[in-house]
């Protein structure tokens, strides 16, 4: 049985189409969602997390339809959710906040709950700061508090909306390590703008553009889309779709290379930029 199935999902906000007939299945492993701002990533994650209802379509988690009361409850008992903008009661300490969410997650026994709160706060490296008020914590620490609450109870479905936003490079590395161990056997849906996070962490990457899924496959398959389409040169080629100056002073370019171009091995970012660029072209020059 497929662990999470999304069928014909559609959502509009007034005239804006956030999701347009999205069909996708998620299996255990780390699934990365890539897409520009407004592509529909957060809306998709909110609907799968049962925080938002779709206009059309359905989500099945572990065999249950989450639009029903029973299915939603079953899904919520098996999921951890990190929203893009987690709200905090600033007078809470980190411990109070995670403890509060643990109560919402039906951890009734106080001792077991407190043990679990200490465990997840230790996982994110906040043992020493757990009794500090959230208002006294840095942005990166607050992000880690929010990640900790999502890890309560080792959920089978872990939904993380831009978990590495605001984390410094060392914390991002630690997060990758944490996710690799804490999420073993779980389905992880991870939205990010960091293509290197996707390359390092994800078994599968899904690219959302304008509310539609335009790619689903392994990170290396996404990178392969750009094979023969990435080259470097001393100057910018006017025919390149995208070009930027690298740290070495060379211009890295994506598009149709001129003959004799110095082709380079593409990265996940190149594949993604190629896809996103095509989508932008399609918007700017719609087919007649």
């Amino acid at each position: 049985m497929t662990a999470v199935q999304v069928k014909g999902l559609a959502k509009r906000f007034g005239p804006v189409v956030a999701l347009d007939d999205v069909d996708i299945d998620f299996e255990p492993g780390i699934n990365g969602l890539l897409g520009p701002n407004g592509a529909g990533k957060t809306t998709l994650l909110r609907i799968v997390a049962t925080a938002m209802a779709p206009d059309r379509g359905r989500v099945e988690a572990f065999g249950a339809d989450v639009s029903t009361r029973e299915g939603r409850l079953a899904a919520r008992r098996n999921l951890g959710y990190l929203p893009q903008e987690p709200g905090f009661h600033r007078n809470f300490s980190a411990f109070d906040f995670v403890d509060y969410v643990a109560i919402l997650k039906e951890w009734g026994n106080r001792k077991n709950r407190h043990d679990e709160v200490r465990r997840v706060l230790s996982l994110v490296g906040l043992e020493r700061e757990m009794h500090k008020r959230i208002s006294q914590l840095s942005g990166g620490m607050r992000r880690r508090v929010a990640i900790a609450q999502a890890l309560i109870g080792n959920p089978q479905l872990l939904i993380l909306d831009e978990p590495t936003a605001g984390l410094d490079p060392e914390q991002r590395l630690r997060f990758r390590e944490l996710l690799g161990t804490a999420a073993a056997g779980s389905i992880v849906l991870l939205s990010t703008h960091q293509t290197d996070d996707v390359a390092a962490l994800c078994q599968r990457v899904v690219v959302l553009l304008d509310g539609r899924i335009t790619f689903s496959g392994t990170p290396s398959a996404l990178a392969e889309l750009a094979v023969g389409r990435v080259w470097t040169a001393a100057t910018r080629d006017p025919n390149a779709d995208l070009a930027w100056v690298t740290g070495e002073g060379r211009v890295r370019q994506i598009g149709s290379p001129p003959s004799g171009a110095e082709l380079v091995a593409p990265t996940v970012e190149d594949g993604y930029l190629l896809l996103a660029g095509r989508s932008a072209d399609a918007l700017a020059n719609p087919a007649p």
Partner: protein
Amino acid sequence: MTDTDWHASDELIARFATDPSNIDHARAASLEAHLVDCARCRSQINEHVDSSFLDDSWARIADEIDRPHESPIERLLRTSGMPAGWARLISATPGLRGAGAISVVAILIVAVLSSLTTDTAGAFLIFAPLLPMAAVAASFHPTADPAGEAGVATPLHGWALAVRRTLVLGGGALVLIGLAELAVGAVGVPIAAWVLPSLALAAGALALGTWLRIEAAVGSLVAGWVVLVCAVRWLDGTDVSFADSTTFALGGRLCTVAALVLAVAVIVVRRDRFQTMEVFT
């Protein structure tokens, strides 16, 4: 700290570790002082100590230290029989403080209005029913839940929590209105004349809030209520006081009960809306 030449016997250490009351006070005190200086005897005593007892003791201490501070409202709810978890979920909402602030301001408004008019009961009857609605609305504002959006995707979020918060906040507001009634000297107004509109408006705000933002729902109802009361009084004739107008008489009360039933029915039918973050936002 250095080892000394003298060391306690294994038998003495065992008795000291398992039950110090078996040793006379002088020897126990002497051994205790010796242990501070003697690493060898300290290591011996470890062999006789039940480590699970120490672990449990430490866990209990850590649990007490980590235990979140209990607010007076949380303590009140818990001692009145509410399970500790629910008491925390309800009392932790910042909306509770917002509701308290609204209540105090509303009482002051009623007091000021009462001083400006000879129709004290009328001023009370117009404004008092708005108080529970404002308190309930404060608890349902999108910023009211301390866990924010993360709390939405949890098993206890939704209908059950919404009903409990409403009862606590609405009930608290009704108590404050009762105190306000005493404060402004409007005693003599039938309880049903203000309790029924209070309940109907609070339920109406929740019912409308399943379609509109909570601010819009409350604003519409405040305007609607004031217009209704003034219009009915105008139809009754200006020689009739607000307290004696049809709105607060038997006919008005029956209409209010009908509105209350309708609002509750809407809430029950649309209760699934409370399960997501979209309600009231």
